[in-house]
């Protein structure tokens, strides 16, 4: 359902959409059922002259079942939803697949700094590419991100990936994503971070391998040592 509104561009975004759909279906069913019963009762039991209301304590077993049966049904639905939700949660937030590349994401008031590993695919080397408010990634490659903040709380949110993670000063939080299609999308900060919270947009640019290589070589700091012949991405990156 969400994919009709927002592109689904990561390996797990479809799973999250599915969880949302399943929850929508199950709670939608209960919601509609409850509302229908509710309005039907209101219509059916409107006051009529001379008709006295029934005296029902609701304490007898055959009366109580009208509450206990929905009670257990709710429990069953809850368990189903929990299982699905936790499975997706494990995929997105707990399991950490082997990365093809790692980027560093640094939030501050009110900008994002993205440190790309550059042509040698290693962070903390001279050819790292630092960009403000622009994250370049290659499609079909597993990325790790190392998220931190310089001042207050921020939140790194990429709606098309269905990915969101708060950045906390003093902590490094790791996560992963793998883009499945190219394009340019918003990166949001979803945790209030001061007066510039609303002007902290960034863009994620998902490129195919060729575009990404070109971008890597043109933007890498011009250092004599950088060997342009090295393939910018490891071959194993392609599944």
């Amino acid at each position: 359902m969400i994919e009709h509104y927002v592109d689904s561009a990561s390996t797990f975004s479809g799973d999250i959409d599915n969880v949302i759909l399943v929850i929508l279906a199950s709670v939608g069913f209960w919601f509609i059922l409850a509302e229908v019963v509710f309005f039907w009762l209101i219509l059916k039991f409107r006051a009529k002259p001379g008709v006295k209301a029934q005296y029902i304590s609701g304490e007898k077993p055959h009366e109580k079942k009208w509450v206990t049966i929905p009670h257990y049904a709710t429990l069953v639905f809850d368990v189903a939803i929990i299982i699905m939700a936790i499975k997706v949660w494990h995929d997105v937030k707990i399991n950490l697949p082997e990365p093809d590349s790692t980027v560093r994401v640094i939030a501050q008031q009110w900008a994002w700094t993205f440190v790309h590993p550059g042509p040698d695919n290693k962070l903390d080397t001279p050819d790292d590419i630092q960009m403000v408010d622009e994250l370049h990634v290659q499609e079909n490659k597993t990325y790790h991100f190392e998220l931190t903040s310089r001042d207050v709380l921020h939140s790194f949110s990429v709606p098309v990936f269905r990915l969101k993670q708060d950045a906390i000063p003093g902590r490094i939080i790791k996560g992963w994503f793998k883009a499945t299609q190219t394009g340019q999308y918003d990166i949001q900060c979803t945790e209030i971070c001061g007066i510039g919270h609303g002007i902290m947009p960034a863009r994620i640019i998902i490129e195919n391998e060729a575009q990404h290589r070109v971008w890597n070589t043109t933007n890498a700091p011009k250092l004599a040592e950088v060997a342009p012949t090295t393939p910018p991405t490891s071959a194993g990156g392609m599944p």
Partner: protein
Amino acid sequence: MSTAAHAEQDHAHGHAHHDEGFIKKYLWSTDHKMIAMQYLFTGMAMALIGGFTVYAFRMQLAFPGMSVPGYGRVTATDYNALVTTHGSVMIFWVAMPVLIAALGNYLIPLMIGCDDMVFPRLNRLSYQLFLISSIVLIASFYVPGGAFGGAWTSYPPLSAKAEYSLTGLGSSMWLLAVALEFAAFLLGGINFVTTVMNSRAPGMKMFDVPIVVWMIIIASILFMASVGPLIAGAVMLLFDQQIGTGFFDPAKGGDPVLWQHLFWFFGHPEVYVVLLPAMGIVAEIITVFSRKKLFAYKTVLYTAIGTGVLSFFVWAHHQFIAGIDPRMANVFSVTTLLISIPVAEMVFVYIGTLYGGSIRLTTPMLWALSFIAEFLLGGVTGIFLGASGSDIYFHDTYFVIAHFHYTFFPIAFIGSFAAITYWFPKMFGKMMNETWGKVHFWGTIISFNFIFIPLFFLGARGDHRRIYDYRHFPDLMKAGMQDMRILATLALLVLLAFQVVFLVNFFYSLFKGAKAPANPWEANTLEWQAPSPPPHGNFPQGLPNVYRGPYEYSHPDRQADWWPQTEPEPTKS
């Protein structure tokens, strides 16, 4: 010993009874009904402030950059201050005082059949602290730097350091106001609990206590048990702000995540602190106007207690993606979905109560029924957020906003309107106008849905919270999105306009309304046995005796379809 305690109370009454000077009667009163009125009117005044702030920032969202009539241009700083004020005012200064303090103060002594709270002067002190807290909050708008703009959750380090928030004094005043408000409600809560434990009318057993009183008591206990860590945290944060300690500063060995935990350890039970009284109000109203015994009284009670207990185990679902250990999210996801069971059951019980009834759609009944209908949507959308997997996407989007407004609006406004329209005859001795009441009802309910249904869709499309101008985000300016923001804002304007109907009806009825009989709704509970409005001391004929539960409507042995709690059993011949 207990007589001595009463002597103290009589002493306090002695003052209020005889002199009827304006100040003593209206401002310095120890009468629970007057204090309830003080809370009610202060809460209503604060609701106007909350309403004005939402008007200003919704206008900015719909028509970014425009000069909002009556406010002016909404800058980013203004926007943050407005949303922060809106959130804190509506929860701490509207929902809490109206639902718990005003109704608790008004109803508890009347419904359990005693003449006043057991500590009337403590009660007065509680209101005065609350009043000071409101004044401090309002004053924070006029200090250099302006009002605090770090959201009602006040997460440090943004709230802890003036260099980040740019509102050094405003942050501290906000925090001080909240802390004072907590102190006020702690005093009030102790008063409520001891009153109900010790001053019930003779014959009133545990299960003869009306549900709304139970709910207020459970809510007060929840509040008392959960707010402590946040009071401690508020002191720590205040020191961080003003002295420069580092409780929440990672560079000094503190931890900003600690505040989030302290806040939500209180913050989640707080949801139930305001929900339960509203649920109680609905229970009173639907039984009276469907002339039915409450379906499974004890089940309602146990589910309320169950909800209260469970509410202490779910707090971290607000922090799934806030940097807590992801494995903890599994635990909290399970507990969160479990809490849906008692709450759902409570709603089922209410729906079950309607079965076989003789339903009269008066204004209070309309409000009570709409509470159930609207709260259902708020409840089920919570599942999306409690399930960790889908919360990754929805966290901090407008979906969250729509969800909790579908719970908080029914709680704070629908619940309060239900209560005010239902107990208005008792409070003021006048009937409210039904026609205008229904006009207000339909206008409010319809426009309310037109505000928040679009917000669900906006949230699903990725609109994130607390952004004052979406034009910076190309993905959020796709076709139709701005139209939905405008629709929500226009619906809000309609909703606000209909509140004028309410205010006019309220004050017109207050002064010019038809005189109300003691028991206009033919209800069973004790407050309706007192005159309307009840005099000082509540029951001039002497304190009542209680013979039965509060919901004996349409008993088969009786001609009348109601059976007051105070009516003695017929002598069997």
